[in-house]
């Protein structure tokens, strides 16, 4: 019989079990509802979600625009990609920045801001590693930029938030380090509420056998603090100014 050397984890969990008056670890009975949902159930809920969002899209877009504005976003409703590009141009030129960074997301195919800005003499760096660009170099580009532009993985009407999930082509720092962040939101990115986002994330997690990516950020307005005399100041360590361009 091999001796059982207890690890810090065993010791720790034993002391928790002792405190609960339990002998051994066992799952809750009955099992917890949301941990028992099958992939099929999640898929089905996701379909309902999509239906509901599609049925209410106009209302959701309006609510998103209104709520986002209340939360401190500068909101532009762009009827088409040209209007969106026009808005981005005006923001960037108004700030008089020399360099802009952007993520490498699908939305930029629809809304080719890069060319437009370059035509105005503004340098645009796409954050995507390749032979010429290591992680460190890209990081330096971000630090040197006056504006960061991303798409949105989700845009949430309930809260006025843009959700950004860092991964290939989407750096964590693009929407964080430059003092201004512009988020390009397509109608298909919009969901109604927090529950929707978390359902879709869980679906992806379980579809992949237990992976939904390394990081996720909800962005709801500019960076702020009220730590001194509870007086609100906008723009501390994150962007001071955030723009939401709503396509459609």
């Amino acid at each position: 019989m091999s001796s059982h050397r207890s690890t810090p984890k065993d010791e720790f969990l034993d002391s928790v079990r002792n405190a609960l008056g339990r002998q051994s670890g066992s799952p809750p009975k009955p099992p917890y509802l949301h941990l028992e949902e099958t992939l099929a159930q999640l898929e089905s809920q996701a379909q309902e979600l999509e239906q509901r969002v599609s049925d209410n899209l106009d209302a959701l877009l309006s609510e998103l625009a209104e709520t986002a504005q209340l939360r401190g976003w500068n909101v532009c409703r762009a009827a088409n990609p040209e209007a969106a590009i026009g808005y981005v141009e005006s923001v960037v030129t108004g700030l008089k920045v020399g360099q802009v960074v952007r993520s490498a997301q699908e939305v930029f195919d629809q809304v080719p801001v890069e060319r437009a800005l370059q035509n105005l003499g503004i340098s645009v760096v796409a954050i995507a590693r390749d032979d010429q660009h290591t992680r460190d170099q890209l990081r330096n580009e971000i630090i040197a930029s006056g504006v960061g532009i991303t798409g949105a993985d989700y845009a949430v009407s309930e809260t006025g938030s843009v959700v950004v999930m860092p991964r290939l082509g989407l750096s964590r720092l693009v929407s964080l380090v430059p003092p201004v962040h512009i988020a390009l939101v397509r109608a298909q990115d919009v969901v109604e509420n927090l529950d929707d986002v978390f359902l879709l994330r869980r679906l992806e997690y379980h579809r992949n056998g237990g992976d939904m990516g390394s990081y996720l950020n909800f962005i709801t307005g500019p960076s702020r603090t009220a730590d001194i005399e509870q007086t609100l100041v906008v723009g501390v360590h994150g962007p001071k100014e955030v723009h939401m361009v709503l396509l459609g």
Partner: protein
Amino acid sequence: MPQIKTQDFFDASALSIKDPELRQALQRVGTGFDNARREAIDEVSAEVWEQWRESARQIKEHTIDHLDYYLELLHDNVTKNGGQVHFARDAEQANAIVANLVKSKGVKIVTKGKSMVSEELSLNPVLEGLGTEVYETDLGEYIIQLANETPSHLVAPALHKTKAQVAQLFSDKLGVPYTDDIEEMARVAREALRGKFLAADMGISGANFLVAETGSLVIITNEGNGRLCTSAPRIHVGITGMEKVIPSLHDLAVFLRLLPRSATGQRLTSYMSMVSGPRRESDEDGPEEFHLVIVDNGRSKMLADPKLRESLYCIRCGACLNICPVYQKVGGHAYGWVYPGPIGAIVTPSLVGLKQAKDLPFASSLCGACREACPVKINIPRMLLHLRQELTESSEPAVNSTPALESILARCYTATMSHPTLLSMGTKLLKLLQIPVARNGRIQKAPFAPLSRWTRSRDLPAVPQRSFREIWRQELSGSNQSHQ
């Protein structure tokens, strides 16, 4: 453990209650935070708010009752994400874990997001002792780090400081020209910390929630420092109490609705960041390593006591502090340790020792406002009563703290109230004793403690000629018809 000054509560509170600058700062907690919370509740309606509270409470109740299972699930899923989980039974073990990481990974600069647990551990001095530069990056924490003080509130650590005090502090410690313009001071902090964020080897964060289902750590923040600490360095260490876990990502939604509103009245903070392991190979940036340090440090004691268990449901919103008349008047430092206010009056004695913090459970009028404000419906007054009982009735000398005089008074009171003849004798005695001091039905100066403490600012009623029971016997008991 940070220095424990809980035994000084009486004296410390007597001083702080007279501090005009502190009182002014504390006023904002009621008119600012608490009012904003009420507005946020009104906006969604009381009915909806109550549904959220009940839902959140049930989630916490379930999770804490099965904490072993969920911690194990969390561990497995964090590991699956490529993260490493470290279990720390106490502060010493937790600090050793982080210190080892610092040493073995060649960490020179650490940026820290807000973490009350790390205050509990007194982690900073340990790391600084290794020659590491440690920078608090939350503005409030940054201010108190410069001032070499401890936080005085769960959510706004520098609440007790006026802008003039912060201006002086920045001028002294950072060498910047004195300015009490708040925007300017925030800009100073931003510039001072910018370089540190980007140069840091390790970022340390706390955790608002831990999602067992997906192995994720969640922080909600406003400034952006939390994101920078968890995104820019090559190592991210999350330090958390073991009670922060929730079962499913589905459950996170209701807590995100409750916590910001309860804390500051915000509908949602500027940022919510969810970390599910270190960066993936395909990520453009992010930490290469993610370590989660799960700390007990006395929480299993609270877990073991069925009457204290619900204190582990706390989501550290600070709503109870903001509404508490005692906290509003004496501030956080008087409580003498990391956790002040109503929840602090339970958590602090549980973690540092009941006798050590014996004043805290009694420093309350039991008004119950805290329980009303609590988003997870923690019955704080009931736990305060439980702790008072422990302190008074424990047979262990290490715990029992009742002054002998009080015990005697309690016994006399009980005896008197157990025998109506004793009661009427007692009343007769009081009527005699009060003769020298009773005027016009009032007593303005009681000759002995504790009544003399009352009469220093308030009148007492004199004992009237006849008690109610005498009037009843003499006049009222005969007739039981209605009077019209």
